């Protein structure tokens, strides 16, 4: 790995951490949702500073290239995250459905009651 590439890795991982923290500070992200991203970005920083971790682990598992190992791990983590987001989205969708149905039915029941009172 060239020195330049390592410097780029470190700079970008630090920028990512900075970006995420800034978004949290501006409260565009809930704390509960931000935990994952903070841990994930710190993980990236650690890997950038100490690539030997990746080299050691890939050697342990018999993976020829450490890059493959890094890709494998990150893709897996993102896939799990993506799936959990999908679940979350489904639940939100269901909640929105229930809320709007509730609003519409309440409104209708109220209108009916008013009409009866007039009569």
């Amino acid at each position, binding site marked *: 790995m060239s020195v330049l590439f390592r410097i780029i890795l470190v700079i970008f991982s630090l920028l990512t951490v900075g970006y995420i923290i800034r978004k949290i500070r501006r409260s565009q992200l809930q704390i509960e949702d931000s935990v994952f991203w903070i841990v994930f970005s710190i993980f990236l920083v650690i890997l950038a500073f100490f690539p030997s971790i990746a080299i050691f682990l890939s050697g342990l598992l018999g993976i020829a290239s450490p890059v493959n190992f890094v890709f494998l791990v990150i893709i897996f983590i993102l896939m799990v995250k993506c799936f959990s987001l999908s679940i979350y989205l*489904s639940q939100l969708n*269901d909640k*929105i*459905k229930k809320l*709007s*149905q509730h*609003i*519409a*039915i309440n*409104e*209708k*029941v109220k209108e009916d009651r008013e009409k009866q009172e007039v*009569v």
Partner: protein
Amino acid sequence: MLLQNSPAILRHIQRNNIIICSIITNINGLVYIVHNRYNRKGNETLGCTYGRKALIMNVLIIIPAYNEAGIIEWVVDNLIINYPHFDYIVVNDGSKDDTSEICRRNGYNLLDLPVNIGLSGAVQAGMKYAEKLEYDAVLQFDGDGQHDPAYIQPMVNQMVKTGADIVIGSRFKTVKKSFNPRMLGSRVIHCLVRLTTGYNMTDPTSGMRLYSMPIAREFANNINYGPEPDTIAYLLRNGVSLSEVQVGMNERKTGESYLNWAGALRYMMRICSSIVFIQWFRKRSI
């Protein structure tokens, strides 16, 4: 006891100052109700109303409407004028055009969903309303003029006669299906349903369905209960009884179908994968 179970009739009675003298049931399968009546001069007289029990079953017609401003008036007026003994509710699914304004201007029964939540959510809203008002059955009826209200009564009669949980208005029970590409999807779903449930559902994509209240309640309160063939297939496999009635349908009058080519493909993917794979590990919770 018949009337106690029928809030719509109770409301009708309260509204029109009807006093019931006696109810005689089961003379040749008919129900006779002796009650007071007001003649044209406004004098009170004695009258008798009778009908099949089917007529006394309270059905709420749910009309989901999304951007149907051009046709909704025609559909609902036709229903109100020609079939006034049915209760109906228009469910405006957050339309972008003035469907909601038109319904309010005409004083239709309207559930006005604040945002667009899709056909299944709209029908679900109607079912929740029916559950709240304790109807005996609900009928899903398109707001685009495709369905003919003349077939509602035969479907209700069928439900009473057979005791089926779901009655589908089928275009192809006695009429043969034509061989055009639009029927291709229908054929595919028909085959899948037949393979997985053994039931010969002649018109799975028909949107004209009558659900008895227990089933409608299940639809109203569960996730993944879209009023689509996959749910019907799933329920069939779980022992729900189904019956079909031959109906005729009109071509769409205005507006755009929920399904264009891309949409149709997505619809087919969803329904087919749901019937073939997902239904097997669903758990039914009542």
